[in-house]
């Protein structure tokens, strides 16, 4: 029996617990989970300040969202007559239903924040520059996918907030000149948000978009290694730790793997605490003829809603579209190879300030939309 267990264990974990650097390297290469990493890494990329662990936290959140999302699918029914009722079931009947739904909701919100910060970190340290252009574009794609997943997930509870946010969003897509009506009917499968729209959003949210995201995440991680690891100050020739003097490498086990474990545990613990402390909101069931006042999109789209308040096409379609295309083109326009790995270096002051200006613009419009817009979208001076 003991021999059998021993055999079972060594068939799964061929190397055993590594006792020295050589075994650690072998373990990294032999394990499907660990071979994503390079067996040896540059110490500069291990420093917390090099990444703030934002990419890893995004991945942890995506994993939490997948796990809780699959669980929610056991109870959820994507039909206008049943969807909202299953939300109530999750809140009052299903064991651990509230914490599962809360975790899914707060992890989704956190992912929007963390992915955006991750993008800011990469931009401010010049991480999009050659040879990392393609990976930056993949990252912009993942940012858009994060938003698309949030938006499609937003309809599923079928409450008033969901219904009207998606009505507004679908009509915004309908404001695209020429093909707007086509996009809208593709998205909704009907003339207004109803049964076909809910089913389509469900399929997009649970199958199509996560699959696409998993594929691009795979590419994203692959490129990190193929492009020579993360951008750090070691890429800056003027730095005293420059790669010009030859790279110093440390084994990924234990230096990288243990750090990742700690970040994963901390991120999961924080999300779990939030899920236990705060309940995800649920408004009354969707009513297609009664719009709540004010009718607001989820907070991360309130910047766009604020802009759409001025013009549906310019604020809701043209400007967000231009931002996504502009961000994708950044590495092909800004090609200087100076001061890599440093945040906001003097040599890249203009690019960094332009980026921060864009981020601030969206932050300010989002804050106005969230706190200073009351009934009928009128300005008001206190949060409500």
């Amino acid at each position, binding site marked *: 029996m003991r021999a059998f267990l021993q055999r079972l264990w060594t068939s799964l974990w061929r190397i055993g617990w590594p006792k020295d650097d050589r075994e650690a390297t072998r373990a990294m290469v032999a394990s499907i989970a660990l071979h994503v990493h390079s067996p040896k890494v540059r110490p500069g990329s291990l420093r917390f300040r090099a990444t703030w662990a934002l990419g890893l936290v995004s991945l942890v959140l995506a994993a939490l969202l997948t796990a809780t999302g699959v669980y929610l699918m056991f109870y959820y029914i994507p039909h206008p007559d049943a969807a909202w009722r299953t939300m109530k079931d999750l809140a009052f009947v299903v064991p651990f239903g509230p914490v599962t739904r809360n975790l899914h909701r707060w992890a989704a919100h956190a992912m929007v924040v963390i992915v955006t910060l991750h993008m800011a970190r990469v931009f401010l340290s010049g991480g999009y520059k050659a040879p990392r252009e393609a990976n930056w574009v993949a990252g912009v794609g993942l940012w858009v996918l994060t938003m698309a997943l949030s938006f499609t997930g937003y309809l599923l509870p079928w409450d008033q907030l969901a219904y009207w946010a998606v009505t507004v969003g679908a009509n915004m897509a309908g404001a695209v000149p020429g093909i707007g009506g086509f996009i809208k009917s593709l998205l909704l499968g*009907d003339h207004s948000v109803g049964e076909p729209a809910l089913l389509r959003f469900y399929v997009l949210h649970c199958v199509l978009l996560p699959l696409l995201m998993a594929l691009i995440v795979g590419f994203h991680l692959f490129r990190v290694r193929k492009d020579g690891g993360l951008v750090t100050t070691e890429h800056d020739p003027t730095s005293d730790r420059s790669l010009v003097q030859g790279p110093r490498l440390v084994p990924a086990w234990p230096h990288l793997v243990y750090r990742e474990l700690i970040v994963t545990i901390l991120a999961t613990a924080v999300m779990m605490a939030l899920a236990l402390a705060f309940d995800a909101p649920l408004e009354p069931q969707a009513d297609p003829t009664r719009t709540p006042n004010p009718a607001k999109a989820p907070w991360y789209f309130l910047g766009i809603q604020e802009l759409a308040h001025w013009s549906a096409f310019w604020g809701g379609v043209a400007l967000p579209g231009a931002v996504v295309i502009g961000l994708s083109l950044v590495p092909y326009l800004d090609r200087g190879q100076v001061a890599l790995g440093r945040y906001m270096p003097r040599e890249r002051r203009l690019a960094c300030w332009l980026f921060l200006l864009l981020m601030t613009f969206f932050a300010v419009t989002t804050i106005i939309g969230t706190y200073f817009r009351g009934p009928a979208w009128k300005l008001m001076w206190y949060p409500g």
Partner: protein
Amino acid sequence: MADDPVQQPGAVPRRNVLFALGCGALGLSTVAGAAASVRFAINPVSWGPSLRKTLGPPAQYGVGTRTWIDGAGVFVVRDAVGLRALSGRCTHLGCTVREDGDGFVCPCHGSTYDAEGRVTAGPAPEPLAYVRLTRDGRGRLVADLGREVAADERLKVV
């Protein structure tokens, strides 16, 4: 060698012609497949509630009144000349407007309309739509949300 029938000088090699034909066929069938799968996703049938809403007999709407019909999303407006159905769907992004004094206001982005449905403020690009109002076999009013009509078209009842 000079009269090699396969490789005339200046002639396009057969291999290149076949390769181009193959690429063309592959490209065409890819485009056709993509077009078909997009067309598949455009639903030709509406499974939602009918756009024709039955609103009851005209007698229940007094001359000079404006009545909100909840399930239909329209206001029935009656004046001395006749009846009209004014859609409550904001022309900006499709939220339902609500009455605000004589006119209307949209809760989503703050567009306002006067009593005739004309835009007075906000991002709405067009006035509220008037929709076709008819009567069915039993004399009840029927509003067809899918058929827009001119603002001065009234259903006259005696």
